[in-house]
C-alpha cells in the first residue's frame, strides 16, 4: 500500500466526515440545551434538500438563491417543529420528549413519501463543482473542497454565535441551568427556538452538500446520515460543537478507511458507527471533548 492511496482515503474520509460533523452540530446544540435527542434532525435535513430541489425545478430560481432560501426555510421549519411538537412536552418526562421526537421523525419521513413520492429525484450540481483536480497524486472533486471550506466557515459562524453574542450566552446559560436562566429574565422559549433554527439551518446546509455529492434525494435519505451524525456528536462529546465536528471527521475517516483496507467488510459499513457508539458509551461516555454529564 502506497502513501498516495492512504492519503486519498483520508481525504475522502475528511470530505464525508465534514458533512457528518456539520449535521452533528445541530444534534449537539439541541442536546446540550434540552437534553433531547432530536430524532427528527436527519429528516429536517431531508426537508432542506427538498426545499432546495423545488426551488430550482419548480420556481426556476438560480441554484445559489434556491440553496440560500432552502436553508432559511429549513430554519423556519425547525422553529415550527419546536413550537408545535417539542414545546408542549418540555416539562414532561424526558422519555416522553424522546417518543415525541421519534414520532416527528416518522411523521416527516412519511409526509415526505406522501408529498414528494418515494422515487429518488436527481439533484442539481453546478457545473464548476463537478471538476476533479489532482493534487500530489490525490484526486479531489471540487465540490468536496468547497464543501469542506463552507463547513469550516459555518462552524466558525456557529461558534461565534455561541461564544460572542448575547443569544449565545443565553444558550450556554440554559444548558447550564434552565430554571435560573428563566429567573434572570431570559426568554427561554425564544432562545430554544433560535437554537433549533441554527441547528436546522446547519442540517440543511449539510444536507444540500450531501445531496450534491450523490447527486440524488429521497424522503428516507435523512435516516442514515442522521444516525451517524448522532454517533459523531456522542463521539465528540455531546453538547460540544467543536467536538461534534471532530467526531464527524473521525467517523468519516474510520468508515472510509475500513472500506478501503478491507473491501470484504464493506457490507458492515453502516454497523461501524454503532459499534463505535457502543464502545464510546462503555469506555468514555463523555466523548472526546465533553464534560461530565449531569445524570
Amino acid at each position, binding site marked *: 500500500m502506497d502513501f498516495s492511496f492512504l492519503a486519498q482515503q483520508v481525504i475522502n474520509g475528511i470530505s464525508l466526515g465534514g458533512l457528518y460533523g456539520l449535521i452533528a452540530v445541530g444534534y449537539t446544540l439541541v442536546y446540550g440545551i434540552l*437534553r*433531547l*435527542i432530536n430524532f427528527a434532525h436527519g429528516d429536517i435535513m431531508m426537508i432542506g434538500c427538498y426545499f432546495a430541489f423545488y426551488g430550482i425545478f419548480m420556481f426556476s430560481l438560480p441554484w445559489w438563491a434556491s440553496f440560500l432560501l432552502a436553508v432559511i426555510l429549513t430554519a423556519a421549519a425547525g422553529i415550527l417543529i419546536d413550537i408545535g*411538537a417539542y414545546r*408542549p*412536552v418540555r416539562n*414532561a418526562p*424526558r*422519555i*416522553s*420528549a*424522546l*417518543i*415525541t421526537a*421519534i*414520532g*416527528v421523525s*416518522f*411523521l416527516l419521513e*412519511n*409526509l415526505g*413519501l*406522501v408529498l414528494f413520492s*418515494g422515487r429518488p429525484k436527481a439533484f442539481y450540481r453546478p457545473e464548476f463543482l463537478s471538476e476533479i483536480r489532482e493534487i500530489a497524486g490525490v484526486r479531489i472533486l471540487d465540490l468536496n473542497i468547497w464543501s469542506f471550506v463552507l463547513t469550516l466557515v459555518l462552524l466558525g459562524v456557529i461558534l461565534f454565535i455561541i461564544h460572542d453574542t448575547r443569544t449565545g450566552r443565553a444558550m450556554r446559560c440554559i444548558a447550564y441551568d434552565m430554571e435560573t436562566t428563566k429567573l434572570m429574565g431570559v426568554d427561554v422559549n425564544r432562545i430554544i427556538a433560535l437554537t433549533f433554527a441554527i441547528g436546522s439551518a446547519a442540517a440543511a446546509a449539510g444536507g444540500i452538500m450531501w445531496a450534491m455529492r450523490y447527486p440524488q434525494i429521497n424522503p428516507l435519505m435523512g435516516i442514515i446520515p442522521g*444516525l451517524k451524525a*448522532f454517533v459523531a456528536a*456522542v463521539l465528540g462529546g455531546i453538547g460540544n460543537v467543536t467536538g461534534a465536528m471532530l467526531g464527524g471527521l473521525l467517523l468519516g475517516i474510520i468508515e472510509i478507511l475500513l472500506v478501503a483496507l478491507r473491501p470484504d467488510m464493506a*457490507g*458492515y459499513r*453502516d*454497523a461501524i*458507527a*454503532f*459499534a463505535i*457508539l*457502543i464502545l464510546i*458509551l*462503555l469506555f468514555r*461516555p463523555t466523548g472526546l471533548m465533553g464534560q461530565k454529564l449531569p*445524570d
Partner: protein
Amino acid sequence: MDPHRKRNQALSLAAIAVVAAVLYFADSGASDYQIRILNNCAIFAALAVSYNLINGVTGQFSLGPNAFLAIGAYTSALLTMSPLEKELSFIIDPVIWPLNEIQTPFYVSLLAAGSVSALFGLLMGFPVFRVRGDYLAIVTLGFGEVVRVVANNTQSVTNGPLGLKGIEAHTDLWWTSGFALATVFFVGRLVRSSYGMALKAIRYDETAAEAIGINTFWHKMLAFIVSAFFAGIGGGLLAHLITTISPSLFTFFLTFNLLIIIVLGGLGSTTGAVLAALLVTWGGEALRFVEEPMQIGPLDIPGIPGMRMVIFSLLLVLMMIFARQGIMGTREFSWNAVFSGIRRLQRGPGKAK
C-alpha cells in the same frame, strides 16, 4: 385477600372460553384475510406485552425489539426448513454446518428461537445497562441496526439480502392465540410477583430502588431477557405466518409499530398493551381506505400510499402532547374495576364517589 377472587377467576375463564369459541368458528368460517388479521392481532398483542415489560414496567426505554424478532424469526425458520430446501435457496454461499443437516419440529424451533433470542438479550444487556435513559434508547436502536446489517452480510447463515423463502406456514390461529395467552399470563404473573414490584420500583426511581437493596442491574437484565424470549418466539411465529423473511423486514419500522401500541395502551399496562395491539392492528386495516382513490363529490382524489403511517405518527405525537397516559396509564384491567364501574353507573352520576 380479594373476596371476589372466585368470581373473577370464573369470569376470566368464561372470557377465554368465549374468545376460544370465536376463534373456533373463525378458523373454519372466516376468510383468509380475516384470519390473517386475527393472527397479526394475537402476535402483536404478545409482542407488545413483552416489549412493555422492559419499556413500560421497568422504564428502560429499549428501541431494539426488532433485533430479537429478527433473531427469533431466522432461528426458527432455519430449523424448520428441510436440508434440501436450504440447499436450494442458498445459491450464493452454501449454508454452514450444522444448519445444513438439521431439521426440527415447529415447536422445538420456537423454543430455540426464544432461547437464542434470550441469550442475545443476555449478551446485549451487559453493555446496554451500563447506560440509562436516552442513551439506552440509542444503544438498543444501534443493536437493532447491527443485527440487521449482520443478517444482510452473513450470507452462509441468513442467505443475506435474499432472505429465506418457502418457510412452511405452520402458524395458525391456535398457535398465535395460545402464544398470546401464554405471554399475557406469564408476563402478568411476573409483574405481580416480588420481581415485578422491584421492576416498578426501578421505573419510579432507580437510585432509590438501588438504595433499598434491589439489584437493579440483574432485575433490568431479567426483564430484558424475558422480553427477548417472547419477542424471539413471536418472531418465529411471524416467520411461519408470512413464510418469507429478509433483513429488510426487521427495520426500526417494526419497533416503531410496537412503540405506538404500548404508548397507546399506556406504558406499563399489560392489559393496555393487549387492547392497543388489537386497536392498532385492526385500525391499520380499517384505515386502508385512506390510501385508496376516493371520490368526494366532484373531487377525484388519487390513492395516496403511505397516508396511514402519516396518521399513525401524528397520533403518536398528539398522544405525547395531549394524552401521555394512553388508554390505561399504568393501571390494569380488572373485574373489580368493571363491577365498581357498573355500580357507580347504577347509583347515578350525582352520588358517584
